[in-house]
């Protein structure tokens, strides 16, 4: 996939990822090459075990490829140390999980402020205001001082998106972000992601939800560790 009009933000070149299991070596990704331009909303689809989450983890710097290279915004991610990778990830990639993964003992506001604290990305006095602004952006500002367990699934996912945006990363990745939500809430969440893409973020979502294909500018289908299809929805 190539979009000459946009600079490629993410470039994967011949990426292979193998895991050693008791039953032998398993290749989760096989020689995958991929370019993703800036500011798109992209879906990765595939059956369970096809390698889509592994691909997402490699893009997010959560996993390193066994072979091949991953360049994100010009940085060879696989060459970064664990510590440098953590800081890089904090500033460049916002991650949204299926089960939200908000820290249960922190309030919603504190959860959103936490990435700024770890990456020291904004002056201390600005962090609270920025977190509140992000919560407002995802429409849950009034829930700021509540603990995650008191919020609905949709509200928690909105909070998780606000947290993913905390350090203003150019890339947002989400693994089955609506898998645990009802359809109405799922629509609202996809609207949010679409708005983020429109604002210039590159949003990559692993999803099974076929009903939302209209939101995506590109859909990458994976089977048995290989990209089997890339298509631009009609």
């Amino acid at each position, binding site marked *: 996939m190539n979009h000459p009009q946009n600079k490629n933000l993410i470039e994967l070149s011949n990426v292979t990822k193998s895991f050693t299991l008791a039953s032998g070596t398993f290749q989760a990704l096989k020689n995958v090459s991929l370019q993703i331009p800036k500011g798109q909303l992209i879906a990765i689809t595939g059956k369970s075990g096809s390698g889509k989450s592994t691909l997402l983890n490699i893009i*997010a710097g*959560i996993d390193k490829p066994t072979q091949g290279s991953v360049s994100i915004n010009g940085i060879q991610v696989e060459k970064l140390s664990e*510590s440098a990778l953590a800081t890089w990830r904090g500033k460049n990639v916002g991650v949204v999980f299926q089960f939200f993964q908000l820290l249960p003992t922190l309030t919603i506001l504190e959860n959103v402020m936490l990435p700024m604290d770890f990456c020291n990305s904004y002056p201390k006095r600005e962090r609270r205001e920025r977190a509140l602004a992000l919560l407002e952006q995802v429409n849950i500002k009034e829930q700021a001082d509540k603990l995650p367990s008191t919020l609905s699934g949709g509200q928690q996912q909105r909070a998780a998106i606000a947290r993913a945006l905390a350090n203003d990363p150019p890339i947002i990745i989400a693994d089955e972000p609506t898998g645990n939500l009802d359809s109405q809430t799922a629509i609202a969440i996809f609207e949010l992601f679409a708005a983020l893409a429109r604002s210039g973020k590159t949003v990559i979502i692993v999803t099974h939800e076929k009903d939302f294909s209209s939101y995506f500018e590109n859909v990458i289908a994976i089977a048995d560790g290989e990209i089997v299809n890339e298509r631009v929805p009609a």
Partner: protein
Amino acid sequence: MQTRYYKVIRDLTSDYSKNFMLVLAIAVGVFGIGAILDGYSVIKREMTDNYKSTMPASATIEIEGKITKGLVDSVKQISGIAEAERHATLVARMKVGEKWYPLLLFIIDDFKEKRTNKAFYISGEREPVAGTMLVERTAFGLMQAKEGDELIIKTPNGTPQKIKLVGTVHDPGLAPAWQEQTGYGYITLSTLHLLGETTGFDQLRILVSENQDSKKHITEVAQTVAHRLEQAGYEVHEIQVPPPGKHPHQGQMSTVMTIFIIFSFLILILGSILVATSMATLMVKQVRQIGVMKTIGATSSQITGLYLLMITLLCVIALVIAIPLSRLAAAGFYNQIAVLLNLEIRNSSIPSWVVLLQIASGIFIPVIAAAFPVIRGSRISVRAALDNHGANQQNIHKNSWELKFSQLSFLSETFRLSIRNVFRLRSRLVMTLGLLAAGGAMFMTALNVSEAWNENLKRIYVQRLYDLEVRLNNSIQADSLLEEIKTIQGVSRAEGWSYSPTSVSKSNAFEVTQTYPDKGHGSFTMQALPVPTQLLKPTIVAGKWLNNNTANDVVLNQSSRGSLKVGDIVSFNLDGQVTQWNVIGFTEDVGSPAIAYVSLEVFSKLKNTQGQVKMLRIAYADRTKENAVRKNREVEALLERENISISAAIPVWLLQNAIAAHMKVLVNSLLAMAILMAFVGTLGLMSTMSMNILERTREIGVMRAIGATPTKIKNLIVWEGFFIGAMSIFLAVALSLILSTYLGRLIGNLSFRTPLTLTVSLLALGIWVLIIIVGSYVATLYPARRANKITTREALTYE
């Protein structure tokens, strides 16, 4: 405050019971260390201050004849002498009820102007007039008397006389009377004469003006004085130089304190291992959160810092609780020790280094112990953290021995599964076993050593085949007397022995001993016995026992052995003459000061007292204390009828009581330590079992989903606890044997210069097994109940 610290605080406050347990584990250790160190610092200072405040004489020179005031004044003029004083000490006897006890009489020249070995006034008269006596405060209990009462006293050459007890003093230089089973009285020379003695002051006490803590210097000055006395025509018997500035029980006290400090640190280390296991639990619980934090930008070091901060806060809370409590305990502790050492606590302030050490150890040891699981947990990769689903099967392989063991068909299905579960997380298993084994080993060691001590005490009766030792004032022909004693019903044997104070002879020097003014501590005696004797069964550790009654052979016990070896020739001073002896063996005596055993025949020849004895040793068929008390009365009545002058009558039961009293504090404190060990060990078991079950919440949900009943799940968990507990017992026993050997050696050598025999306390083993069984059951009950309480749906979705 930075956002991440909110997480630390909230995590701390979100699980009170768990964190309370951690705080308790640290607090117990900090409390132990604080109580012991606080107590130690106060006692060490007060012991030295109390003792030094008595102005203990640097040396005592014993001479033949009476010391005049003029002589004292001339000695004061000698260079290097700060003070000189004449004095006398006499071992008399006092009658308490129907029993006779030794009574140490201090004959004071001038009560008003006492310059050395001062006793401090407490109440009553300050100066006893003729026929009255001041009493050391600890002696009233033994005397079963109070100020104003009268006490029957018999001196070696006198008849029993009533002496009024008119005042009370405190003498910090003396061990408590009840501990030594000896009374202490302070009288004037005229009272001594009233009691039937004709002697005068025969001891010259000197205080050196410089280098007061140098034994070498004191000995040199004392020898100079002794030379002058000889030149003036006096015969010098002995120079006594006790260890300068050191209380008679200082060595014993240091031993006890060293052991306590070691145990306290072990408790803290044990508590810290518990913290480490608990932190491992926390890290397991938080592994997803760690993954999330890393995903949003946290580095491993930031996460490590968060959890170490959490531990530090727990430590601070533990310190806040433990420090004041340890102060209270320390006060109880040093007051108790003060009673045991006859000290007066004049200043109870705790030095700042002790507080700083307590704080430092209370923070650093737990933090260091927890650092390993924290760092390991923090370094987990993001993917591993996010993919974590609790305990895995990676350690169970097809051919692993535990799998084969767990396939033994006679074991129940539940038990077999429990065994497999035990080995699933081996590093945690090692830590749990380490914690329990350490706790159990220390618990059993404390009781083993305590029992070894009691066994050692019993050896007093094994080695001493007599029940009463009677020391006479003069050597006598005792053949007919011994025959007469044997006619007393119940007397099985009686032998005539002899004895004399002695010291190793050095060329051109006077006899120098280390004897304290109480005549007991630091003394060295030559005991002469009929060869072969039937009333002593010594433990020979090298060479052989005396077997030739005409040879100049000597057998030394561990306190007199020094660096001598079998085959050496040694010179001993005996009544001013230098005598040569062949060292043929060494014994290990229980409860004896330094002794050199020689043949009575050779001894008598050297002293020119052939056919005479100065000590009687009598054995009874029935060795119980009750019988011994009755028989001792009959023997003493016989000696009185025969007009035999007795210096001291020492029943073996009295000796055993005295030795037991010396170490009572150690034994009791070891038991207290053992209880603390058991407590921390049980906490550890509970913590680990909770952690093991917590990790398998989802798995338990699966088991329930496929039909496991709550009872089955409970049994599975409880058996797992029992199995871990059982394994720990074997390790604990092995470890306790090693620890008991070393601790027994330390205590024995420092107290008696002989190691305690390794003793395995079956009671300790039984108690520990019981603690493990009950502890395992209780420890697994909560997680088992929790596992059954959570719904199957909740368990299956447990993250």
